């Protein structure tokens, strides 16, 4: 087929209107979410003292941190689904949860400690956290990668890592309502480790499946 013939064929297909990447990503995450919620409801569930926990600012802070990861990660991943897009100028959005955690750790340090620092950091749920967040992330990660496949990222591994951050941020939001460890030190340690694992998986898989 010579190039003029190909061009004629592409023009003949111009009536085909693909949806925007954002629409496909949203649909894919909405399809994946029930699976993650099912894992949550089956194995974890909301903590029993949730009504009183809501009066603890460090409990609420966990959701601020996880959502400040998930939402900017969605925005940046959609930006990077355009071939000419650069991370430059957008990457700082991903530092929001880091900044929030730093503020939270600082405020906790200024209060009279209820428990020694190592106990707050180690918590009671570190092992559950390390398994639960990645497990609940996996359906969402598959959804995010499926959605981003509709885009044209110039750096597939980076886009895959972003998909990992999206799914880990959403999974961690669910997990935060189960976990009784509210210290920002615990969040900064274990949530971060779980997120790093999911991000690495996202980058590895993304490098393969996000090429266009």
């Amino acid at each position, binding site marked *: 087929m010579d*190039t003029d013939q190909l*061009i004629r064929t592409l023009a003949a297909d111009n009536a085909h209107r693909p949806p925007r990447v954002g629409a496909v990503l949203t649909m894919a995450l909405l399809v994946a979410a029930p699976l993650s919620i099912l894992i949550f409801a089956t194995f974890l569930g909301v903590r029993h003292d949730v009504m009183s926990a809501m009066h603890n600012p460090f409990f609420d802070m966990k959701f601020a941190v996880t959502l400040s990861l998930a939402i900017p990660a969605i925005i940046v991943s959609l930006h990077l689904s355009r071939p000419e897009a650069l991370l430059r100028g957008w990457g700082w959005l991903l530092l929001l949860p880091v900044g929030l955690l730093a503020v939270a750790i600082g405020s906790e340090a200024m209060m009279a400690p209820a428990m020694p620092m190592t106990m707050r950091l180690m918590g009671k749920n570190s092992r559950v956290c390390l398994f639960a967040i990645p497990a609940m992330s996996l359906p969402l990660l598959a959804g995010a990668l499926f959605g981003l496949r509709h885009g044209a990222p*110039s750096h597939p591994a980076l886009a895959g890592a972003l998909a990992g951050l999206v799914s880990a941020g959403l999974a961690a939001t669910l997990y935060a309502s189960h976990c009784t460890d509210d210290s920002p030190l615990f969040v900064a340690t274990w949530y971060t480790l779980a997120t790093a694992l999911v991000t690495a998986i996202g980058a590895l898989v993304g490098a393969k499946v996000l090429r266009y």
Partner: protein
Amino acid sequence: MRGREDEWTGLMRSAMAGDDAAYHRLLKAVTPVLRAAARRGLARAGQPPDQAEDIVQEILLAVHLKRHTWDSEAPFAPWLFAIGRNKLIDMLRRRGRRIFVNIDDFAETLPGEVPQETVSAGEVASQLNTLPQRQRDVLQSIAVDSTSIKDTAAKYAMSEGAVRVALHRGLAALTAKLRDQ
């Protein structure tokens, strides 16, 4: 150069609004520029220029299948050249070459002289033969025999909608095969 790129952006906007003729004009207009850039990139990597047409066709397919990622408020050329660079890098990687893609190969200011001849390209044509029968028939009919969608539908006793679906799926399958080869 500015004028040419503004013209491309305008054509792409019309194309996205459903103007098939503007789309055809745009693809015709960018092809010699892509061809020249592909040749420069191959020369820089120490590769013979005879693969340039394969790269051009891969770029055109990617432009087509990913045109929804273009932001109609943004200029068209940087988006186009980003796809061009990616496809050139992919091709060199498949050939196992070290990558020395200079971003200037797909830069926004290019010399005016561009080779016009259409060289035959082998990869799209050979992957075409691996498609399912119906997609191959439809693509052959529209591309090679330059039959309209309407007449292709009559020829194969299909509805026009079915021809459109087979056409789009065929192009998507072709692109996937080229990417994964």
